[in-house]
């Protein structure tokens, strides 16, 4: 277990050092890249809660990236640039959407749940496309980044990087506490054996719905971050292939582990970046790689860590 902690600590230190290293090597692009990785890592952390620990195969998580992003974009469109307000709305709106979608879908099981979460995300995607006011298909530019009353300037790439880094750590830790709390144990129990969970006296639905909402809210935060990172918001945030990507991050990294989502985000996005540099048709390589990873690499990267990666 000591070895595991050391390796993870080393990873954290490495992440801390990226801006300095990148500046040294005159490659500022890496600050952007790793920041993007960390934003998606936050999305993956949120999905890990309901997918990895809860066993709810939500194929619609990209919806909350969209809701979070558009919250920031729409408020900015109307001249509201206060970051505290924007990001609070992003989180609250995502939680609300998750509540509505969850209330309908969590009652269903298995393949229905997968298809329904996918369908609802697609619905939001079409909604985004058809509202011309906010750019329709092309989306909106975020001309002014979220303002935090002078505390931090998101226009400064390094400052923004460290903010995302801090948020990733916070979200990872929050999830860690959550899954080991009474609430978290019920969620995990419902995944492990639903009949047994009902027999001892838990009705899984309210817990799973709550987890679904928390998960959506966290992902909404990632959406707000993404909007500031890219400088624009489009319906493509909610493209269902994006949902699939986030799912892969959770799986590749190792489901139901703390470092898993970040590891998975890193692996997938860096791999995409490398492959894309190679050929424009990188998906023809990534596709089969993903298939192979599902067939042969189920335990994920965290499973390679000493101690097995499992959080207990």
């Amino acid at each position: 277990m000591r070895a595991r902690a050391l390796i993870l600590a080393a990873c954290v230190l490495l992440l801390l050092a990226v801006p300095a290293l990148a500046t040294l090597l005159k490659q500022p692009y890496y600050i952007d890249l790793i920041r993007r990785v960390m934003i998606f890592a936050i999305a993956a952390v949120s999905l890990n809660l309901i997918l990895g620990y809860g066993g709810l195969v939500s194929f619609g998580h990209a919806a909350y990236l969209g809701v979070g992003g558009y919250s920031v974009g729409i408020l900015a469109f109307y001249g509201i640039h206060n970051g505290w307000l924007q990001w609070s709305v992003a989180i609250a709106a995502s939680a609300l959407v998750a509540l509505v979608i969850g209330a309908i879908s969590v009652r269903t099981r298995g393949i229905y749940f997968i298809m329904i979460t996918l369908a609802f995300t697609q619905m939001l995607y079409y909604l985004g496309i058809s509202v011309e006011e906010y750019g329709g298909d092309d989306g909106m530019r975020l001309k002014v980044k979220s303002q935090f009353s002078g505390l931090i300037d998101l226009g400064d790439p390094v400052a923004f990087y460290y903010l995302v880094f801090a948020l990733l750590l916070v979200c990872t830790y929050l999830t860690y506490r959550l899954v080991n709390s009474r609430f978290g144990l019920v969620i995990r129990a419902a995944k492990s054996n639903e009949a047994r969970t009902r027999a001892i006296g838990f009705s899984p639905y309210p817990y799973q719905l709550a987890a679904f909402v928390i998960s959506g809210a966290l992902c909404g935060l990632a959406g707000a971050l993404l909007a500031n990172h890219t400088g624009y918001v489009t319906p493509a945030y909610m493209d269902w292939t994006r949902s699939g990507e986030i799912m892969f991050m959770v799986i590749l990294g190792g489901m139901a582990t703390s470092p898993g989502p970040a590891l998975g985000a890193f692996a997938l996005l860096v791999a995409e970046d490398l492959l894309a540099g190679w050929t424009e048709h990188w998906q023809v390589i990534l596709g089969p790689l993903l298939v192979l990873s599902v067939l042969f690499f189920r335990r994920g990267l965290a499973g390679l860590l000493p101690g097995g990666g499992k959080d207990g």
Partner: protein
Amino acid sequence: MNLILVFEQLLNGLQFGVMLFLMAAGLTLVFGIMNLVNLAHGSLYMVGAYLTVAAVQWTGSYPLGVLLGLAGTLVVGMLLEVVALRTLYERDHLDQVLATFGLILFFNELIAILWGRTALFMSLPSYLQGHVEIFPGSIYPLYRVVVIGVGLVVGAALWYVVAKTRLGMLIRAGASNRTMVAALGINIRLLYTVVFGFGAALAGLAGLMAGPIYAVQPGMGELILIQVFVVIVIGGIGSIRGALVGALVVGVVDTLGRAFLKPLLGHFISPPAAEAAGPALASMLIYLLMALVLAVRPEGLFPAKSG
């Protein structure tokens, strides 16, 4: 409201519904019998369209091209089953979703490599172009009528095969008790491959019929796939009857909604508001319908027995 216009849109909805049905039937069969969630079903739809375009160009003959396209999709489907999907039968749905998602990326990019990303044009022979007079003074594209016809014929044939033939009996038996069918000495592997190929051919048929109406381009399968999911959720998993009812309902509601919701809304609220809200609401209509059905009947309208 122009009654003839409504009727035309109803026919459009029927045509769309028929294509949804062909897709849904294949998908729901595969899920009902092999317990396999296959996201790459949309890719087979796309393969059907592309192979047919290529075959028609190559042979210069539409009927021959269609036949080759269908046969090609059947082969691709069965190859896919043998090479990639067999190992997934034992896995849980999450693994199946992820693996078939990887296949989608692969197929879309492969098609883009072979044929580029711009939409292809699928030409129709002269005898399929033109219009028919459905009402005096109102004409409707002949091709769409043919599509509806083909879809209904295939639907009837499907019903016949499933309800009245030995193969259909095996299919229904396999859906409710896989191990029993295997224990009876039936070659389950072969049955699965045949069923999957069948489903692939249906998807390919839908794809090649869609070619002249919608765009033939990479990613075309996924757009319709999600609507097929809505069909299956509404109709109920594993049931052909559910697929038919669901498909017709979704097809008609979606088409009528897109055509008439904006003008309809314009009667109640101000035109600029209707202009904005109409299309948005229309595109959300089938999902709202799905939510409604789920609220009332979580298993869908005609679920097959779970087995």
